């Protein structure tokens, strides 16, 4: 028997491009990535550290800067849990029940994504401002909404509303009701079934949503800018403080504060990547691709 000899090198897979095309495409992507994503991040840190580490650290000693950091943490600390609750309730309702106006609800949840943040802020000024619909009532009862923490939280909650819900709706829809039904037939109550079955099933999606929601809550500028009133040391969040410092030509301090926000984004990204690496298999099983 004669072994048939291959007459030529094995053909490349049909979906593979030529070497030149590959080099071109990859370098175009890398160039774009470098110019628009990596360079700005590097610039932020270079500018922040231009006058040395000591000056960089000193900028955080400023009481106004500390107040801005505290306020941002507080706003995120209130809005993120609220939106986790809202997101869970909304996606639960949408994924597990059939009702009239469901598609309207889904559209409404997406509204904050499609509306300009400035407009979202303005809505709250019109509602709760001194001349607004409910403003005088709250004022009469000694409550300040606009130009104070409640207004900033309201605006942030509005802007970050979709993150958790959008992550969970497709996930819950795909998983259906059967696991919960199984828990019920085994004697579990509704809350028990939610805690022991639903929550573990959606935990990775929920964590994703929380990370994204948090990043946006801390970084939100437009909506917060309208309702905050820019009172230094009182209603300035970190992004607002960056703007103020920049407008005062205090570049080092501005970039130092910006570097903190950037760091936060990088940590979020790292956490997300770590989760994917560590629990990639579990994620693939429980989240949509």
């Amino acid at each position, binding site marked *: 028997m004669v072994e048939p000899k291959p007459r030529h090198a094995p053909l490349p897979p049909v979906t593979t491009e030529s070497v030149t095309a590959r080099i071109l495409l990859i370098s175009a992507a890398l160039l774009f990535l470098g110019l628009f994503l990596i360079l700005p991040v590097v610039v932020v840190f270079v500018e922040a550290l231009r006058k040395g580490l000591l000056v960089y650290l000193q900028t955080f000693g400023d009481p106004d800067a500390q107040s801005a950091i505290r306020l941002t943490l507080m706003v995120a600390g209130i809005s993120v849990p609220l939106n986790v609750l809202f997101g869970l309730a909304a996606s639960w309702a949408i994924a597990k029940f059939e009702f009239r106006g469901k598609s309207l609800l889904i559209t409404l949840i997406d509204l904050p994504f499609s509306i300009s943040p400035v407009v979202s802020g303005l809505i709250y000024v019109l509602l709760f401002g001194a001349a607004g619909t409910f403003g005088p009532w709250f004022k009469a009862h000694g409550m300040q909404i606009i130009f104070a923490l409640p207004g900033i939280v309201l605006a942030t909650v509005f802007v970050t509303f979709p993150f958790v819900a959008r992550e969970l709706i497709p996930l819950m829809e795909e998983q259906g009701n*059967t696991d919960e*039904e199984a828990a*019920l037939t*085994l004697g*579990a109550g509704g809350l*028990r079934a939610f805690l022991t079955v639903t929550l573990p099933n959606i935990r990775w999606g929920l964590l994703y949503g929380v990370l994204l929601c948090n990043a946006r809550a801390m970084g939100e500028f437009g909506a917060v800018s309208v309702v905050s009133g820019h009172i230094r040391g009182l209603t300035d969040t970190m992004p607002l403080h960056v703007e103020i410092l920049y407008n005062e030509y205090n570049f080092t301090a501005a970039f130092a504060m910006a570097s903190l926000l950037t760091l936060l984004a990088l940590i979020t990204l790292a956490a997300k990547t770590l989760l994917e690496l560590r629990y990639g298999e579990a994620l693939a099983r*429980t989240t949509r691709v």
Partner: protein
Amino acid sequence: MHIRVIDIAKDFGRTGALRGVSLDVRDGELLALLGPSGSGKTTLLRVIAGLEAPSTGQVFFGEEDATTVPVQKRRIGFVFQNYALFKHMTVRDNIAYGLRVRRRSEQPSTSEIIKRADDLLDLVQLSDIGSRYPRQLSGGQQQRVALARALAVEPRVLLLDEPFGALDARVRKDLRRWLRDLHDRTGHTTVFVTHDQEEALELADRVAILNAGKIEQIGSPDDIYDHPASAFVMSFVGDTSSIPIQSDGIGLLHDGQPFEAICHGSCRGSGKLFVRPHDVTIAEASPGRLPGTVVNVHRTARGHRAQILVGNAGVIIEATVDMAKPQVIGERVGLQIQNARVFGD
């Protein structure tokens, strides 16, 4: 536990609705709900479980009216079509779930829970995989875990939705026998849903045939197969050919052609004549035999079958073929028909 379902209706506005179903499940029996998809068999099972509330009608567990008892309190064991095992729990934790969610006062001690879970693992012959996760198991193993989980709560009735639907043919057959054996040992009143007639006939003590939201017939597998109560039952259970017939008072006519047939009861009336392939004998064409032409011969798992075209209306009758006398396609033959039934339109 004796279960009575009385005049249940469930309106969905789509398929799967129930239109006045009454059913008695005897204590300790294994009952199959058999029907095509959309016949309402799964809905009926879910109504018994308490996962669906009926629009009208009642469900009794023994003497207790369970109609408004919530699913958690019915003490039923339900095995879902895709098992619905909790993915994030080990097999042992899955089985122990029903015991752990009990109220403190009714909860067994931790060591007792573990022991019960292990006993159940033994019962379903999976003693060594208690600490694995569902995704590490084969379909058949998952099925048995789901069953053990349902049994852990000491249910009054075991309800299974298409228990073997997601398994391949070989495993299905083994599990079927295994389930029958388990039932005989534990004696649970069991209701299972299936669209597979063979499964229902082989496994069940009694079979209830559902069609379009109603029960067509309830009886032993022999009853169902040998004494079908309606055209639907006859054609749904077992292979059946049907021939439109007229009766002229003397004999049978198909398409104006007189022929003879031996029927259960009488062959009178008009409508359709139903007959099973093994009750049709292919013989030489002669007066009295239904004439036809062999159009196809094919192999089945149980022997050879011929398809015979009779009359001019395109009616095909299936007959078993004796391979000692193989049929030639195109051959003119006469059919001897016995054990036939006539059902009106």
